[in-house]
């Protein structure tokens, strides 16, 4: 089973990411993460099926998911290039604007050097493409504090240290 970093630990990933919906054989069994467009098309059927999460491409803001945030256990955000930073804002707005409490998962081409910032933007799961995810865990601790407010520490530095 593929590996996932979840809450700073390496675990087996029992979710299957469907980059595309298989045309012939239909949906596989088990927990699946489907594209946003497919979710919007097949919402009722997918809700009935259960065990479904949704992934967003980097040009899809999470706004259309607003009505479903109570029910979706996983929202994955794709990084087609690790330098495409739109997902950082999506993670943050999911948590801050929409109060989303489920799993926010990074998928795609992000690298371990981004784990610290991603986790500050509300991501708590990372389908990281690396041979040794255990080693990558060290990057969560690149810094022991932060100036700006984030999801992990909503109180900015100046309210904690500069008063």
């Amino acid at each position, binding site marked *: 089973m593929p590996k996932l970093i979840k809450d700073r630990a390496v675990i087996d990933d029992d979710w299957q990411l469907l980059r595309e919906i298989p045309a012939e054989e239909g949906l596989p069994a088990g927990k699946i993460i489907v594209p946003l467009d497919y979710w919007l098309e097949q919402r009722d059927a997918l809700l009935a099926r259960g065990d479904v999460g949704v992934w967003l491409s980097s040009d899809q803001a999470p706004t259309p998911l607003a009505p479903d945030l109570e029910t979706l256990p996983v929202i994955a955000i794709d990084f087609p290039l690790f330098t495409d930073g739109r997902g950082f*804002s999506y993670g943050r707005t999911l948590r801050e604007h929409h109060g989303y409490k489920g799993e926010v998962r990074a998928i795609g081409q992000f690298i371990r050097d981004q784990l610290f910032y991603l986790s500050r933007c509300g991501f708590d799961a990372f389908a990281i493409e690396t041979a040794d995810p255990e080693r990558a865990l060290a990057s969560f601790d*690149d810094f022991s504090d932060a100036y*700006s407010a984030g999801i992990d520490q909503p109180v900015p*530095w100046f309210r904690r240290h500069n*008063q």
Partner: protein
Amino acid sequence: MYQYNKQDQLLVNERAQQFRGQAERFLAGELTPQQFLPLRLQNGLYKQRLAYMLRIAIPYGTLNSRQLRKLADISRRFDKGFGHFSTRQNLQLNWPELEDVPQILEELASVEMHAIQTSGNCIRNTTADHFSGVAADEIEDARPYCEIIRQWSTFHPEFAFLPRKFKIAVCGSQQDRAAMHVHDVGVEIVHNAQGESGFKILVGGGLGRTPVIGEVINEFLPKQHLLTYLEAVLRVYNQLGRRDNKFKARIKILVRAMGPDAFREKVEAEWVYLKDGPNTLTAEAIAHAQSFFQKPPYEVLDDTIEESTLQQQALADAAFARWLKYNTSRHKQAGHAIVTLSLKTTGYAPGDATAEQMEVVADLADRYSFGEIRSSHQQNLILPDVRKRDLKAVWEAATAIGFATPNIGHLTDIICCPGGDYCSLANAKSIPVAEAIQRKFDDLDYIYDLGELDLNISGCMNACGHHHVGHIGILGVDKKGAEFYQISLGGNQGKDASLGEILGPSFSQVDVPSVIEKVLQTYLDKRIDGEVFLGTFRRIGIEPFKERVYA
């Protein structure tokens, strides 16, 4: 100036450690060159034509003598004994070895310095009026707000992978000395009718291949909202800025495409979520930032007495008198002056300083200016707090190191990027062009007669030399593999900012000085009543210049 507390220090130490690990992983082949690229850029490390270049941050152009000595020391130990003060108020080293960079960052951290976010598609080092806190025309000191922005933008988790770089400039004076109108965001400190501080926010200015003057999207932002509003601007840009074409990725393109009103609406809609949230500045936080920028213990002096002594000294020495007139500026504090050390001496690349020169400047700062130095986007160094009675001694010491050329704000005080001699982006060399102009126009009386004149040179359309906003701009272009130079006229960087108009077909390097001479002669022939170059240009337009140059 700002002093690190334990946590600030810890963060820059951790950053140096982080980069050490990244460099090791790159050298071990664990990080690809493509992956390492943005990581090293966000630590100021570029690859140039012949070597790496390290850009060290000088936050809002403020540094102390200890830091300047460390820069001298680093340039001597890890480079070729000199550095280049850039138009971003930073210091660039041109020859560091990659293997040494982690140690250089650790050395910098030991004096509360770093190279964080001096490059890459992130929020860059915030720049400011280099006379902040001392200028006679100041409304409010920009530095405390710059420091607040520095802290907020440093390691901002959401905005480290923006569509493109993002530059913020802050100015709190009547005269704009920070080129606010040509930055991604310009923050102008203003006071409302009740005397409360706030900010006029400009967005979407910039130079580069598509020069644009910024648009005002907020006339008066009350000061407590500074960070939440900036965060809203950045969040809109991060999501909507173009990522398909690096040349259309700056915020100016987005603002232009949407129109400033639609952009403002997007920002306001985002701001609804952020306004009055935890990033709202508290009175305590602003007071805390301001506490680092209190007046130094000035001696109480009678300006009339100091001035009359100074005038006697000036009468006795014409060279000193010239320097006094052109290289010192009015200070807030009686009996004091602001000294600009000219890094624009003919024969030396504009903005360059050797380790020895840096050390002398550090000594002068300790002796005469409370240990403080500023760097300006015009690539000069400033001693902000000199007693008028010490000016003669400062002049003599500056003369001895070649930093007293009395040309500030005039023709030979040229802004010039490193150009094709160093930079891999450049189409053409810029330093030899600056030198050729300085050599041709070596008669000070002629230069003074020309009056205020900004001549800016960029070696390519990326415009690091701010050629679009020079009264005379020179741009290096590539014409079938040969280096040519396009001249533009009428640019200006102040509050009435304007972009230069292209004169016409470009010239070979050897012809540039004589073309400049014809431009200047046209101005001298046409000016009326002590008009400055820009005034004449704006009155008569570009045609008379064209006729003369291409006759």
